């Protein structure tokens, strides 16, 4: 069991002929993900790695392959359009790896995706993996191992670090989801926590946050009120200098300054375990799985 992706995931790769897209398409195929098609406008009719048909549009690709999931590696100016194209073509899980998508683009993408009944993960995220079943994105497969700890994180490489440490300590994962760190993204902590709570195979959750915003505080409230499974949290940026203020407006709108201390206090108030270092997850999660 897992969240969002599993053996039945059939994947398109948008931007499959680009540098990152082609590299990671191969990595996903090697991992065992069912990559059923690629999309690059103008390269329709070609075949990737001898087996994966390439299409000009997502519409054509969905029509021909019946894919239920897509992963996007297109450059930032085209990412918003790629996400909307996937949603309009009926894809229900859209994972956008692209970093640097303008936030005003995302204000339009977000409602569009919701209206089409799709889930977006990202942008600016590493994607997700259900170890041993399917990998969508760029999380290195070999650092993961199947198990019953759910992982959700705003960070990319920090997630790898912690998953890697868990795996080395023999603690496997049900699914690992990198939700991305952009101001507007498609899936938040609470979406993932609720999914892990509902997944019978997940026994505990490791959650990695960062300074800034109030997502972690809201997640802590959700955990306190709705979760029966143990959650261990970490906040990166405990020693970071205070961020640049965003005019008066930034000060007016955020009830919170989003410091690490504030978030860690919220975790503690929710009864969560709190990791001081990435490596601490090993001990804290182990204790909760016993």
């Amino acid at each position, binding site marked *: 069991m897992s969240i969002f992706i599993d053996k039945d995931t059939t994947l398109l790769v948008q931007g499959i002929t680009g540098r990152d897209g082609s590299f990671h398409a191969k990595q996903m195929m090697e991992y065992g993900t069912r990559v059923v098609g690629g999309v690059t406008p103008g390269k329709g009719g070609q075949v990737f790695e001898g087996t994966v048909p390439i299409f000009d549009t997502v519409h054509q690709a969905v029509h021909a392959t019946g894919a239920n999931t897509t992963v996007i590696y297109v450059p930032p100016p085209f990412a918003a359009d790629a996400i909307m194209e996937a949603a309009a073509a009926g894809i229900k899980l859209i994972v956008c790896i692209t970093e640097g998508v303008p936030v005003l683009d995302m204000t339009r993408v977000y409602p569009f995706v919701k209206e089409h009944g799709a889930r977006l993960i990202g942008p600016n995220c590493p994607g997700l993996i259900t170890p041993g079943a399917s990998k969508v994105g760029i999380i290195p497969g070999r650092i993961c191992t199947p198990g019953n700890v759910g992982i959700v994180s705003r960070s990319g*490489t920090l997630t790898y670090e912690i998953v890697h440490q868990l795996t080395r300590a023999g603690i496997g994962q049900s699914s690992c989801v990198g939700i991305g760190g952009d101001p507007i993204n498609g899936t938040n902590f609470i979406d993932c926590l609720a999914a892990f709570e509902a997944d019978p195979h997940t026994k505990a959750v490791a959650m990695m946050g960062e300074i800034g915003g*109030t997502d972690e505080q809201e997640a802590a409230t959700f955990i306190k009120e709705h979760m029966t499974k143990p959650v261990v949290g970490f906040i990166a940026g405990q020693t970071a200098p205070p961020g640049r203020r965003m005019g008066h*407006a930034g000060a*007016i*709108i955020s009830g919170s300054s989003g410091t690490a201390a504030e978030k860690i206090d919220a975790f503690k108030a929710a009864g969560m375990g709190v990791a001081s270092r990435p490596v601490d997850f090993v001990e804290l999660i182990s204790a909760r799985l016993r």
Partner: protein
Amino acid sequence: MDLHEYQAKELLRAAGVPVPPGRVAITPDEAEAIATEYGVPVMVKAQVHAGGRGKAGGVKFCKTAADAREKAQAILGMDIKGLTVEKVLVTVAADIASEAYVGIIVDRATKKAVFMVSAAGGIDIEEVAATTPEKILYLPVDPRYGLLPFEALRMGFFLYPDAKLARGAAKIMQQLYTAFINAGCSLAEINPLVVTPTNELVAVDGKMVIDDNELDRRPDIAALRDESSEAPSEVDARKANLTFIKLDGNVGCVVNGAGLAMATMDLVKYYGGDPANFLDIGGSSNPEKVVNALRIITSDPNVKCILFNIFGGITRTDDVANGIVTATKQNPLTVPIVIRLTGTNEEIAMEILKANGFSASSDMDEAVQRAVALAKGEAA
């Protein structure tokens, strides 16, 4: 990217917002000439990317052109929060009957651009927000419809019961929103929006922050960047597509990913060290980035040890290894380096490093502890 007040006002003026006439000066002579040209009284205002200019003495009222020259002389070269004032805006002073606040920011919570307006504008607006929040109207703009006329008018009437002023303010809201969208802003403010004694509306101060991700497709806006007002190392980093913030410690950190970079700094502190910087080489990698990162880090004389912490995903560790080899061949290091690499193409990377005489670890805690010790001059 922050814009200067004078740049923000140019964009607002182009969108139709009434802005007092004025121009930027870089010498006292120019300031005097501008005051003479537009007529006194004028304000002379320091153009720096820092708040609290007024309290620091960077904003002055001048009754005569000679006065403008004198005040410009005093302000130019002034240090405000560590930034040197290189330019002043000389602008006609408006008579003020009342001051309102109008701002737009992209809000994480609503996932929309949100207007905030208050009749209690001016420099104490944050105090107003904290103590009397009912004096602020929040209005999220649905990006699918844009700012609708009734929304703009509702804000207008929230600021001014008088219909003429309310309609005038509504028009300014539309113009501000247009400027906000067209420039790819994450923030745009008019504070204060002034009503003059003759019942005219004037935007006396303006501020805009551009979403850096918008700059590639808006070369006209990108051209407004004023590198003279930034730290040279940060300019250098940005040109190399690196995110760099200089700090006071002595462990130079090169990390991929903001979260891991922060966690690495946290761990440096945890083990008793002090990071010299935040440096994120970003998602996709090429050897050139690493070369630039090393150049920037090693130009800081405080740095006593360099710590690489790379966990390869979309970043290929072999690219990083090649970058380290290239950079150190060009400019041999004078401080010790600790390399931690794992993830994508790790085997290749390790081979490259070994072949070039570097050792590397795959454990983060071990690497950080070693770097902290080396920075302290302890044997590793």
